[in-house]
């Protein structure tokens, strides 16, 4: 018999967005305050796990049709390419740079290429976590 988890599902629908926003906040603030790609990725996958708890695997796959293994590989590729990018500027592997840019709404912001590396980490963490959880969840 299927139990009625209306309260859980409704609460999840609200909470998931807050968690994801918080995880992005952690991700972007990693350069100056505690946070970064690893914890950001864990928190995002935490939000997806909450979805998995409230709904089931099929439902979540239906509105997040992501191949998490490919996502891991994409993350690795991004991280590697930010390292290789330095080759074109005749600098050693993984040399990062930054500059201050005037953005329309945010004002003067320092944009660092290390963020791109962190984006790779972020994707890898989500991909690996979700692959583990989905694989264990699917196994009978």
């Amino acid at each position: 018999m299927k139990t009625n988890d209306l309260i859980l599902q409704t609460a999840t629908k609200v909470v998931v967005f807050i968690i994801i926003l918080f995880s992005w906040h952690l991700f972007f603030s990693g350069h100056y305050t505690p946070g970064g790609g690893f914890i950001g990725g864990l928190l995002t996958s935490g939000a997806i796990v909450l979805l998995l708890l409230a709904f089931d695997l099929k439902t979540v796959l239906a509105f997040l049709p992501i191949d998490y293994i490919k996502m891991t590989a994409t993350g690795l590729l991004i991280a590697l390419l930010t390292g290789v990018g330095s080759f074109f500027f005749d600098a050693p592997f993984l040399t990062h740079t930054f500059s201050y840019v005037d953005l329309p709404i945010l004002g003067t912001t320092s944009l660092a290429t290390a963020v791109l590396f962190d984006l790779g980490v972020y994707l890898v963490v989500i991909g690996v976590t979700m692959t583990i959880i989905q694989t264990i969840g699917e196994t009978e």
Partner: protein
Amino acid sequence: MNNLIILPIIIPLFTAIILIFFNKNIKVQKWISAIASFAGIIISSVIVQRVHESGIQTLAVGNWKAPYGIVLVADMYSSLLVLTTSIIAFTSLLFAFSTISHDREKFFFYPGVQFLILGVSGAFLTGDLFNLFVFFEVMLMSSYLLLVLGSRKIQLQESIKYILVNVISSALFVIAVAYLYAVTGTLNMADLSVRISEMGQSGYITVLAILFLIVFGLKGAIFPLFFWLPGSYQAPPTVVTALFGALLTKVGVYSITRVYTLIFYHDPSFTHQILAWLAALTIIFGAIGAIAFWDIKKIVIYNIITAVGVILFGIAANTPEAVEGSVYYLIHDMIIKGALFLLVGVIIAITGTSHLRKFSGLIASHPFLGWMFFIAALSLAGIPPFSGFVGKLKIVQGGFEAGEYTIAFIVLMSSLLVLYSVMKIFIHGFWGEPKEELLVQKKSPKGLLIPIVILIALTTAYGLGVEWISPYISQAADTLLDPTIYIQAVLKE
């Protein structure tokens, strides 16, 4: 600024990532991984030549200077090992193409191999102790995958053992690094060496030297710590065993060599003496195992252990001759172990069994295979025209110079037992009357023979062309014998 020496790390990483995207398309996977590992051979030969012409190459990753950032260091020793690694990788891949089953190939076998190569090359090239740990983990995690992939019962059983041992040794590694960092305040190997020689090798440092010996001994299978190896290496398909046998234990041996010649070399009467006796016991126990078994895979596996002992004795004796011999022997051993495991794989593919008493008379139907095995066996034992000779000769000579008569004698005796153990395979498996059931399974192993031919040709060339190779090897030995060369190249003083 020298991005060349990071290519042996980047190429397998990039290939592995690309292969993940193509995990269903086996043909593309095979082509990409073959091309990438062939490119690896070319790149690492270029590095060897570059190091030979203009000395040690370093790369400060991320443009952070030596003791503060991670430095990659390609001296002759590590670049020769990287070259050998890429040759082994290429030949094993060729062998894997026709032996690995489709369900394994679809579940990330080739990315696993590439990650393994990445870990091994990284471990050889790094100049930072914690980075060495990270590359060890990259290598070990891909070896867990390759070991368990296919999930037969024996593989599951042996991977639990293997993972347990390696998790414990990795934890010990972290603890050892933490202690060393607490004492010296640095993790860069060259900087460590400088600081330890400034403060003198106290008892505390000697304890750490032994702790590192235990850690790397667990990875490299020296005497009391080799218990996990025979079982774990028997479980996976032969090509995986070939990769493990040729590369994984050698990374442990390389790390022992590196730390005992670069960092902990101030109190050799204690540390190197212990290493010498452990090496002797390793040789003895490896030889006992090799002659005791009638399973061809087990025989070759125990020969890995013997060889680890021989190489480490060369380092422990610490004379110019012995160190040079150990470099010769390490490279010879990587190639010949690869060749032997692939040969064993072909024999198993033909006969369907690895038990020596169940087949005989293979020479009648497979003469080429038989004589290649014969050459590999002579080469392994160190018969003069082949590659095992020079290394062992120099190690024994160095052992006598260092006054280690007993252990040098053990090395000599071990050759006899090693020869006996592989000749046993040749005599019982290849000679004699062909057994009846063999005539039924007369598969033609043509595609499987190409990688073996490459390796056997290489080991023969290595034996015959010693004159030509010796400047490279002696350059490697010079760096090992005189740490200041390494330190100056890294710290640019």
